[in-house]
């Protein structure tokens, strides 16, 4: 861009005013940027402080934890973690939890995908009622349903198996998956389906090779939610298991004994429950940023 050389006093004054305005604007946007960073930083500190405290305590011995207050471990120890990784009772808890969470993700996503497709593309007898009924399953208070659950799974011989917990978690995970996926699918124009049929694609081939890749960010986000809600659920998984499939959250209650709570082990086990989640978030982070709400806008 070429600049016109100022010739008259008016234009000189005008240019000076313009550049001053530009400088003010830049200064203001820099201030705003810093204010935004500070606010977000404060929130992150709030999120991380309790987690830092958990980490801090997991590296201390019980006598140090209860003895004095300190910002960081005075005599750093990995003993709590070693205890967990060398005791099969402990580490099998993580294996059990991961086993039923993965089963649940697989079952939920594979039945939710066709169902969400039906809700997003067709009207049929009872569709609206069915959709609302699905949502009501997210509202069932677990406490009293525990006993019927126990009886049901015991009578069909599934008690204390991974699949029992995986099936029970379908109660809230499938409706959630259908809800989220339906939104993503509705954002894909119907013309895509029609073009594929004209080109001679069969329904299954269209669904797998064309449609699913189009909503893969939605599937990523859905898998994150499925993982999250199944991983953190406690009441059902504890009721439906005894020893073979006991989840980690339930094993952690063992740290509380007659002689007091084993805070060090509890903290270390707590830190380890966050790790699988971080792995899952790492893999779906770009999908989350890409647009959860595509269809719901």
């Amino acid at each position, binding site marked *: 861009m070429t600049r016109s050389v100022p010739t008259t006093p008016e234009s000189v004054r005008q240019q000076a005013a313009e550049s001053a305005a530009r400088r003010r604007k830049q200064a203001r946007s820099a201030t705003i940027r810093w204010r935004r960073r500070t606010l*977000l930083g404060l929130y992150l500190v709030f999120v991380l402080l309790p987690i830092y405290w958990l980490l801090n305590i997991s590296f201390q011995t019980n006598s140090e934890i209860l003895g004095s207050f300190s910002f960081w471990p005075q005599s750093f120890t990995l003993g709590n973690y070693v205890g967990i990784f060398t005791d099969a009772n402990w580490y099998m808890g993580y294996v059990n939890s991961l086993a039923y969470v993965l089963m649940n993700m697989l079952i939920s996503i594979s039945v939710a995908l066709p169902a969400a497709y039906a809700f997003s593309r*067709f009207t049929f007898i009872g569709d609206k009622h069915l959709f609302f009924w699905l949502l009501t399953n997210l509202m069932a*208070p677990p406490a009293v349903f525990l*006993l*019927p659950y126990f009886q049901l799974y015991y009578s069909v011989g599934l008690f204390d198996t991974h699949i029992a917990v995986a099936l029970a978690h379908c109660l809230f995970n499938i409706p959630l998956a259908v809800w989220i996926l339906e939104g993503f699918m509705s954002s894909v124009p119907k013309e895509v389906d029609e073009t594929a049929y004209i080109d001679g694609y069969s329904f299954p081939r269209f669904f797998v090779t064309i449609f699913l890749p189009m909503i893969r960010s939605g599937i990523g986000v859905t898998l994150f939610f499925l993982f999250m809600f199944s991983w953190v659920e406690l009441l059902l998984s504890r009721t439906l298991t005894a020893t073979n499939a006991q989840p980690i959250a339930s094993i952690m209650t063992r740290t509380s004994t007659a002689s007091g709570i084993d805070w060090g082990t509890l903290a270390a086990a707590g830190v380890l429950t966050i790790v*699988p989640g971080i792995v899952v978030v790492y893999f779906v982070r770009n999908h989350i940023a890409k647009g959860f709400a595509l269809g719901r806008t």
Partner: protein
Amino acid sequence: MNKVHDNRAWFLILPMLLLVAFSAIIPLMTVVNYSVQDVFDANTRFFTGTEWFEAILNDRSLQAALLRQFAFSFTILAIEVPLGIGIALLMPKRGWQASAVLILITLPLLIPWNVVGSIWQLFTRGDIGLMGVGIRELGYPYNITRNASDAWATIVLMDVWHWTPLIALLCYSGLRAIPDAYYQAARIDRATKWAVFRYIQLPKLTNVLVIGVLLRFMHSFMIYAEPFVLTGGGPGSSTTFLSQSLTTMAIAQQDLGPSAAFSLIYFLIILLVCWIFYTAIMNSQKDHTAQGGA
């Protein structure tokens, strides 16, 4: 979108329906069955009609727990929804910073609920906890096992810490889905930041907010493990919420009839509130689109 009417779509629904029904309908029928009977053992039971329902509705301590529950749920919604939207607006949009912030703020969501209670117990203890010691250093005699308002405030704070990320996450991805053309149009019109938020961002967030608000309401209404671990419902009954009364009744006292009636009433309350939320938000949105189209 114009949908095609086709009843064969039922075949696509069927596998899901069977799975959810297995986990939903049989236990629900059992609960309905219990709620109208007095159960002694597997073979001895008497039909009682609506007796349990009357007893539950007239129970003063349960009425108090219900009020406490509503106060709690609306408090945390009033804090978490605006805060979550604010955080989503502040989050970086791309690059490694976006990934890092995303991973950091989702951390609280990934911790099992009873562990969340344990973390906060460690964090708020007056002798060894960072927050507990910190507040006492400032001169306030903070004590969640003695002081009811401290316990209440701590549980609200814990819930805000635990669940604001869910709202922020939903809003963040909702914001990412707004096409740039909208913002360019706003710039040409010299719209203020507030106008951009009010007329572009907020309407576009409505649908994710419906999911967020409904999920938060349902979960906060069923909150159990966190306050149970943190305060055990005390001091007194200041932090005893509905599901804790229910669990005590069902598991500890084994009162099957009354607790079944209780859970059905509980379920209907959640259903009713969610339905009101849902229709209210959907209707306001319909009005909005009608205005926009005119």
